[in-house]
């Protein structure tokens, strides 16, 4: 490869590194997660509140020698069950999404580091960045498997 072509490729790598880094910053979903957790905490609080209200109405009924409304009692129980299910689903969703989000950021980090090393400022002319150098940056078995699949597909 001619020196000019090599220099151009390194400039492209430098620009791509900046673009992926910018994209990584835009992947911030903290506000979404906070809303999920707040909703989950609110549901937990509402569930407890429903239990307290029910206990209080049962107590008031016993003092007044009357009976709590059976329809309201049944609906309260159904609501508490539904709240518990939704809360569990929200917690599961938030936890799994947080892990996927973290993994995506780690892959973006890996791409940025690789591109930076291939770029103008990091690489002296005449040196190269090999697939083994790239593999050394991986943080998961999934990345290594993908790497091996590509190498295999390209017959390298």
């Amino acid at each position, binding site marked *: 490869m001619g020196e000019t072509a090599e220099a151009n490729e390194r400039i492209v790598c430098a620009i791509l590194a900046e673009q992926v880094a910018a994209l990584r910053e835009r992947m911030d*979903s*903290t506000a979404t*997660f*906070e809303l999920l*957790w707040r909703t*989950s905490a609110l549901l*937990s609080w509402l569930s407890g509140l429903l239990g307290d209200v029910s206990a209080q109405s049962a107590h008031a009924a016993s003092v007044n020698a009357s009976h709590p409304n059976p329809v309201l009692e049944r609906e309260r129980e159904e609501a508490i069950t539904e709240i518990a299910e939704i809360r569990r689903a929200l*917690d*599961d969703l*938030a*936890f*799994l999404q*947080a*892990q*996927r*989000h*973290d*993994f995506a*950021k*780690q892959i973006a980090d890996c791409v940025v580091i690789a591109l930076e090393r291939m770029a103008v400022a990091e690489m002296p002319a005449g040196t190269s960045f090999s697939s083994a150098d790239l593999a050394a940056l991986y*943080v*998961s*078995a*999934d990345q*290594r498997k993908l790497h091996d699949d590509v190498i295999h597909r390209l017959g390298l």
Partner: protein
Amino acid sequence: MPTILVLDDSATMVMSLSHILKGAGYDVETGMNGREGITKLTDGIKPAVILTDLNMPELDGIGFIKEARKIASTRFTPIIVLTTESGGRKRDEARAAGASGWLTKPAEPNQLLSVVKQLCPTR
């Protein structure tokens, strides 16, 4: 309430783990890397279980485990590695450093809680 020390360089993961563990009745202390974890331990935090990521800046998970095992109060504390790494080599490295268990991300909340509860029941 028993305390769980959570170490991860992802703020989202730290918040998510804290939410799950607090919901299950644990106190949670957090750090963004192994160095912060060691500082917490030397400051006197006595966690019942430690959850740590592997790939962290300053001091990674393996380095943290090695240093934590040198501190008398955490020599035998269960340390669970929670990481995207599922490779045998990393796992062997963590075990040799003193890790007690391993969970590969993405893990289910129930999976995480079941491991933590086995090591440290809340009541």
